[in-house]
């Protein structure tokens, strides 16, 4: 998966409607949309698309979308 598409997928999961554009450097912890529903959706996304097994608590401890991309390997 290309990096642009990965970012789009994460935006879909977050259903982000904020003013600022989301980038790989956006801090997830600062976003209201990064809630438990988004986190479990991301766990399932990383598993289904990349075969990466992470837990909810793993994702509660990461900072940026770049960190997610690193887990996915994109």
């Amino acid at each position: 998966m290309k990096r642009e598409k990965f970012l789009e997928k994460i935006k879909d999961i977050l259903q982000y409607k904020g003013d600022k554009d989301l980038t790989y450097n956006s801090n997830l912890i600062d976003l209201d949309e990064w809630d438990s529903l988004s986190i479990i959706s991301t766990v399932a996304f990383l598993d289904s698309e990349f075969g990466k097994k992470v837990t909810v608590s793993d994702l509660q401890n990461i900072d940026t979308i770049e960190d997610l991309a690193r887990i996915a390997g994109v």
Partner: protein
Amino acid sequence: MVKFAFRNSKIAGISTVIPNNERCLLNEPNLYGGNKEKINRVINSSGFLKRRITGKETTSDLCLQAANDLIKNLNLNINEIDALLFISYTPDYLMPATSYVLHKKLKLSQNCICMDIPQACSGYELGLYQAAMLINSGCKKVLLLVGDSFSKFSDMFKNNTAPVFGDAGSATLIEYDKDAEKMFFNINSDGNDFDALICENGGFRNPVKKNDFYKDEGYIYNSRMDGGRIFDFTMNNVAPNIEDLLNYARISVSDIDEFVFHQANKFILENIARKLNIEPERISTKTLTNFGNQCGASIPCTISNILSEKVAKQNLKCLLSGFGVGLSWASAIVTFDKIYCSKLNNYKEE
């Protein structure tokens, strides 16, 4: 390895009962501070919408009505019931076991074993397993009552776990039949996460004291659920348990007529379907959407809700799987061969 195959045990009938009081997530004023957008997002992802909750009636009242319906429709001689199992985390009393209360109300014979087993989400499979063991140790007819009223574990005005649980009761008759098709079970447990879904007060570790009811921190029976840990548990454990069972039974996914899963939530069931490589449509979520997560009763209620006509007319090989509080996860492959199965009946006050 905790996998088993039983002969001689036939499921003869199922009856289910739900309370009348319906609540809808769209009308829960305190949920997410009334944030409509967030509520809609939760409804879309989890699949929850409506649920039924008990008032004064208890789980045993729902199970009693289900049992009476089953006795009537199977034309059962109650003196032939050798064992009564009540599977629930919401008993009538701390002592005695609720199965004795039901033994009286059902007017069963003294030649009967009464047993309560506290289990919820995997309770139906564990109950069938226990019933099959009893049949293979000499019992001829076992009445299995599985139900819960988890709405009572939450103060619905304060607790966010409240809106997902619906209450229900079920009755299933398992009887000796030397020609019955084999039943297969795979049962797993992990106490390390016993506190991932817990109601801490009211037992003897944290006994109830005079001033405990409605302290500042809330309702005495409030349960806590660590949704993240429960989600991780389901993602990691349920599909492998089912794959092991299919291998053990030498049955392939295509041989299974119906998958009936504990109605945990839509998102979890979709992910289990994906991991098993089966079409998500094969795992129904209709029961959770209309009646909530009914804990141990969610599987018999789903059979009543969507399969009652099919199981009455056909021979259906079904894979049942339940998972949750304990943590406990258990799957079973059973055959329903033209059995009596009620629709989801509404509770009638005595």
